[in-house]
């Protein structure tokens, strides 16, 4: 996905508000499993949505329409 989905595709739970913390903690070397538990994301549908997300927006943001 280009930008983190607001809700889980499967169950509809709000997950986007947890993305920043998840990304920050995982990139600083923490175990994703533990971070997801801490954020109280319990269902595996929501867990896969966050864990499999690649934030491509930061790659394409500079190449968008001329301003």
């Amino acid at each position, binding site marked *: 996905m*280009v*930008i*983190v989905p*607001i*809700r*889980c595709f499967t*169950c*509809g*739970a*709000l997950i*986007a*508000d*947890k*993305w*920043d913390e998840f990304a920050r903690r995982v990139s600083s070397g923490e175990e994703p499993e533990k971070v997801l538990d801490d954020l109280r994301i319990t269902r595996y549908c929501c867990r896969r949505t966050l864990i499999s997300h690649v934030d491509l*927006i*930061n790659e*394409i*943001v*500079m*190449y*968008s*329409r001329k*301003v």
Partner: protein
Amino acid sequence: MSFNVSVVERGDNYIKILFDGVPLQLVNAIRRAALTEVPSIAIADVLFIDNTSALYDEIIAHRLGLIPLTSDEALSKYRLPEECVECGEVEGCEGCYTIITLDVTAKEEVTTVYSGDLISQDPDVRPVSPKIPIVVLAPGQRLAFEARARLGRGKEHIKWSPATVANVTYLAKVGVDRSRCVLCGKCVDVCPRKVFSVASNGIEVDESKCILCKQCVKVCDYEAINLGWYDDKYMLYIESSGALAPERIFLEALKIIANKLRNLYEEVSKLGGYVGGS
């Protein structure tokens, strides 16, 4: 009819209610009403003033719609879409909509626009979390829009559903036949929910953890385990998106069902003839 309803668990965004002696059809009606009938407020249309971001207007509008907005006060403040049809859809129709605006321009660095940047005309209607990313802007890019939020129901679009998850489950009944059990401990090892444990006087069972996967029945060589469920006990689980408190969703669902039944009764009464009961 005697019945018992009790709250088993209340988390920050969910509620677990045990029904004893209530027909499954009724519990399921509450579940369905929680998902599709209980109204909440969400962004319905967006008027873009400027969008030079990497995402299309449609994608941003869709993302905005999915942001849960606090609806506790809104339910009594705003008119439902059914009532709005009668008000004739005057431009901006007073009492049907609230306006939410946003205007962010990225200056020197890449900026993420968050739900916290949304400015709502009505302080009671605001995003449930200020940390939801809407879009990322490169230096010089701008996002500005005016959005209208209104009440709606989950049957129109799921963004209006105040409950993300609502399910009804059976309650497991796990019996161990002590005359057959040889305490081999296979069920203790295989159970993913750790329902079984070995005690001095035989296998001990904690039914409340059981998810009815039947692994224990398969693994037991002595057919000592009886697995079933209670006929008249159901667990209702409602998880909120944050728009309404979970117990509020439950109560609103009950009100809606009661209203529908009352309407049905009145309509049937009009047909004349005998309508029993009261």
